[in-house]
């Protein structure tokens, strides 16, 4: 009986959590739909449908409301036909259905030039840049961070310079990276590396230092030497936190992507966004942003699931505090 009520309580809580998660996406979507579709809610502009007597008006043109009024007035005064139009939102706020359509056409539109890529190829290219940049960053940053956290002399030797170097803005290395590494993917990977490596060392060093000393002390009383302390206590002890750190740092890697993809031969999804924004195809911009968000969110969800598998000892027993 008690168990049942406990179970239903848990389910109730999960349902609520799921509802809130959905709400977290639904609320912005509803707001967006309302602003796009409810007449007069915002719509600060007029979309011209017939120019009437206004010489410079064209069909489909967006003009300010009061300007439209003034032009209509003067057209009437001149004895011309007044222009007609309907309230509209600015181009930078496409309606949800337009973005949905753009999402579809972005995948189905073949590249304009032969040197360019399909949309899904661009996305994949971005993902590989992130993957390699972040992988190199981890391969060097994780061991160095752990060593800094575990051994004071290492920290004293390495951390002052890293503290200094982490203020180098990664974009500033763009031209240098291209000069050294060529114009293809290597400099892009290098930008992601530079953007995440220094932070990673410092963050992981701190995580390592935060390891509860009682584990180290318990190991010492059980006869552990330095090497065993590092491999059998420090590393497994920080692993779940280290994993969480890496998940957060991976998010940062994505912010450097836009710089990485602008240098050398421009490529990838953020380049796509830059291009489309230049042509004022804001529906395409939003579509690409949604893709980016989805990739980030889904990969993080996946990593979180994996984390639960990887660190089974973190599971509390049922009913435990």
């Amino acid at each position, binding site marked *: 009986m008690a168990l049942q009520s406990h179970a239903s309580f848990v389910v109730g809580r999960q349902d609520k959590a799921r509802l809130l998660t959905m709400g977290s996406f639904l609320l912005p979507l509803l707001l967006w739909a309302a602003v796009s579709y409810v007449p007069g809610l915002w719509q600060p502009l007029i979309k011209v449908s017939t120019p009437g007597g206004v010489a410079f008006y064209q069909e489909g043109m967006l003009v300010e409301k009061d300007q439209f009024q003034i032009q209509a007035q003067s057209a009437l005064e001149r004895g011309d036909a007044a222009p007609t139009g309907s309230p509209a939102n600015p181009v930078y706020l496409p309606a949800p259905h337009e973005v949905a359509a753009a999402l579809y056409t972005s995948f189905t539109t073949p590249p304009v030039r032969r040197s360019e890529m399909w949309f899904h190829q661009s996305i994949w290219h971005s993902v590989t840049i992130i993957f390699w940049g972040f992988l190199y960053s981890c391969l060097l940053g994780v061991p160095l961070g752990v060593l800094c956290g575990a051994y004071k002399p290492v920290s004293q030797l390495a951390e002052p310079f890293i503290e200094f170097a982490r203020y180098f803005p990664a974009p500033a290395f763009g031209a240098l990276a291209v000069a050294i590494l060529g114009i293809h993917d290597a400099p892009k990977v290098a930008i992601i590396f530079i953007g995440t490596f220094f932070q990673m060392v410092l963050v992981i060093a701190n995580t390592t230092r935060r390891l509860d000393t009682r*584990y180290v*002390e318990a190991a010492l*009383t059980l006869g552990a030497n330095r090497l065993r302390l590092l491999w059998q*206590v420090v590393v497994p002890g920080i692993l779940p936190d280290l994993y969480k750190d890496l998940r957060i740092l991976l998010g940062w890697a994505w912010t450097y992507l836009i710089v990485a993809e602008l240098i050398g031969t421009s490529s990838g999804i953020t380049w796509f966004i830059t291009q489309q924004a230049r042509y004022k195809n804001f529906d395409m911009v939003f579509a690409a942003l949604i893709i980016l968000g989805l990739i980030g969110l889904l990969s993080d969800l996946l990593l979180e699931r994996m984390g639960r598998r990887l660190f089974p000892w973190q599971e509390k027993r049922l009913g*435990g505090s």
Partner: protein
Amino acid sequence: MAAVETQMLSSSSVKLAFRDLGKTFFVQGEPKLALQNINAEIRTGEFVSIVGASGCGKSTLIRIAAGLEQASEGGVYVEDNLVIKPGQDRGMVFQQFSLFPWLTVKENVMFGLQDQCPDKARRGEKALVWVERVGLGEFVDYYPNQLSGGMQQRVAIARALAPGPKVLLMDEPFAALDAQTRGRMQRHLLEIWRNLNITVVFITHDLEEAVLLADKIFVLAPKPGRLVATLPIDIPRTKDDLERDKYGPEFERVFKKISALLADSVPLDH
């Protein structure tokens, strides 16, 4: 019979000795005297309890004995060898549960056996024996998080004992347990102590626990931490030659006596 033998043995050899032990901490550059001039001896097979007010230096004392902290003056000797670092001749059980959360019960116990037993399978068998000895045979593959506090401390005791230490150092090991569990753990500890003929140093701030368990009680006074009394407890262990009757008249007499001592042990600098 066994008790008589241990007493005869223990009267001859000193296992653990504190000699002119002093400890000064530096807090923001200011020296702070935590322990002053501690002199005491603990014999082989003896069960000694250390009691004293909070902050009087009990943990510091036992941590120096474990080698986790350095003495500022004098030192702790195990069979005439000065303690300078942790070693497998001394096992330690901490107040805060300190099992490695990423290892199962068995793996925790295996941790201290790596030097003695390089073969992993053999090590596992040895650990299993210890896990069973503390009555947790069916939980070998559980993670510490999945166990109750009492079970965790039993594993901690098994882990500390597995490498075969001569001295078991315990810093308020049962303080975080509920009264019932604590009672069972006390009984359990006495059994282990008797079976292994091991020397136990047991810190507690629960005087009743000290009188119940110990052959000898050290009373520490605070500010600075000093040893103000060493009291042999001669109340007979009536239950199975192990436990004392805590409702008997003798128990109350001794309890009151030490209570008064503790109440008198006020800081020197007041």
